[in-house]
């Protein structure tokens, strides 16, 4: 199944898929309008969550920890071979899988020294 089909199953439009950075099986491309997914963000960058795309499961899970649209986060680290992404939100750090991280759309606001 291609990502487009997955996207359709999740009731997403093609535009949303492009926004999310999904591009066939490669998974990610660089987006031009300053929006990136949490997976694309570089470690050490800060950003604001624009949208969380995907099943209600992920939205609920993140929301339960207070991570939702409009929140400021920082990407602490990423792992090789599409390993989990660690983000910092307030005083807590949360690790989430690469695919989950690809569904969190972020506008990068700055880099942390």
């Amino acid at each position, binding site marked *: 199944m291609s990502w487009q089909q997955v996207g359709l199953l999740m009731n997403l439009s093609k535009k949303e898929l492009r926004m999310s950075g999904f591009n066939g099986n490669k998974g990610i491309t660089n987006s031009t309008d300053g929006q990136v997914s949490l997976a694309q963000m570089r470690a050490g960058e800060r950003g604001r969550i624009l949208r969380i795309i995907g099943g209600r499961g992920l939205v609920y899970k993140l929301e339960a920890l207070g991570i939702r649209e409009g929140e400021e986060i920082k990407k602490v680290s990423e792992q090789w071979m599409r390993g989990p992404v660690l983000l910092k939100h307030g005083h*807590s*750090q949360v690790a989430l899988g690469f695919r989950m991280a690809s569904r969190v759309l972020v506008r990068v606001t700055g880099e942390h020294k």
Partner: protein
Amino acid sequence: MGNPNVGKSAIFSRLTGAHVIVSNYAGTTVEFVKGSMRIAGHDVELVDVPGTYTLNPTNNAERIAVGMLMDRDDEDVVLNVVEATNLERSLNLTLQLLSKRTPIVVALSFWDEAKHRGVSIDADELENILGVPCIPICAVTGWGINHLVEKIKEARPSSYQYSEREKWNEIGKIVEKVQTLTHRHHTLLERLGDASVKPITGLPIAVAVLFLAFQLIRFIGEGLISHVCEPVFETLWSPVMLKLSSLLGSTGFVHDLVIGQLLEGQIDYGQSFGLLTTGLFVPLGAVLPYVLAFYTVLSFLEDFGYLPRLAIMVDTLMHRLGLHGLAIVPMLLGLGCNVPGVLSTRILETRRERFISATILSIGVPCAALQAMVVGLVARHGVANLGIVYGTLFIVWLTLGVLLNCTTRGESPEIFVEIPPYRIPYLRSLLKKIWMRMKWFVREAVPFVLLGVLLVNILYTLGVIQFVGQITEPVVTQILGLPSDAVGALIIGFFRKDVAVGMLAPLGLTGKQLVIASVVLAMYFPCVATFATLVRELGIADMLKSAGIMIVSSLIVGGLLNLILT
């Protein structure tokens, strides 16, 4: 109730004096524990539950917590533990609890850590807003606990109203009113925390931590055995036993049961197999030192907060096994004892993950008791043999995980876990935890080992082991290349694997045979305690499936070793 890793169990053990494990990672508590305390002259029952972020649970541990809340009576009080350093997130659960209109008292935990991090909270103002008592505490040191106890009486339902849609705005407003932040610089621990999750620094750190842990366990374990346990048994206990031996007439069934066989007039704790000789030496002299060493190291890593970070580093590997990084926690606990290991698979969300992890855990992860005996016995024939045992079990663990991942239906979710800050372990609670685990070991292990030794004697006397040995000879001798006597160890291995390995000692096996026997003993079937836990956690059907995999894979692996090794 409260979010994971906010100190619920620490408060519970402070209040009740009950012994529960407290660690620094989400998901330490996976079942509810009851205890009691006295408040104003009344006996009160207290229940410690697993942590949860919301009242919509996503895994079994959370389900237990929410189920407990739903089963409450009208007079029950909910003690909601709120992490002062994460007020906003914690209040999400608090508001959900308040809307249940049940009497609540709020404990603001990690008060000291919040101060260090520049977070200050106006507890009185929070109390005014929420309409329930809010008490600052520090659970590990016990600061504020007395005040909390006094205030439990004042728990009351709140009349706080909010709309679900405006929840986060509402929480934001509360936080703005009660919390002030001052900027603090990164501490050394925070920098260390970041370094251990970046691939370039994190992988070497993980390797170093595991290597050091292994060396430390060996150092403590071997040191205790050769400097404390063996001298105590040899110089203090042996004379007593020899006296008893002559009193019992040096031969006969009772003598052999209590003292066992003397070798050249002396007691050999490895081979005599009497209740008071081998039966006591195995758990207390040979296994206990390693169990102590293992739990000292594990407890430190738990309290420091390393386990969830290790989970991040091994996540990619664990995906190949149909699991995610957090599944490393049950595996590590399993290296101590398989029972808590299997129990902690509850932190995994799906049935599929629990089946895979519990199965490869009980096949490929040997418990400390088994390891201690294997190390003692196999290492005599060369450390390389020990390497083969561990190497084989690791390959089996890996291969089986990959196979189960391909053949078990369904998909496994990705990791999703909060990573706590590193914390310097509080020495008293660390020592208490190690002490508790030792007590459990002695209480669980000694009776079973004695039962095992008793059984060995009875079964030998009745000729049962010799009989089963004859029937199973084709399998044991032809496939595994072991003498038919070794079947006794396989029978007893169901009770205690340490006793089973002990039974191999008098057989005079070669290095190769010891390697095969150790590997097969580790894999073929869980001990009775683990078996019971597996049945409870997986259900009968999956347990039978799991047991089938164990028996078949142990025969295949044992047979292969017999062919390959020289």
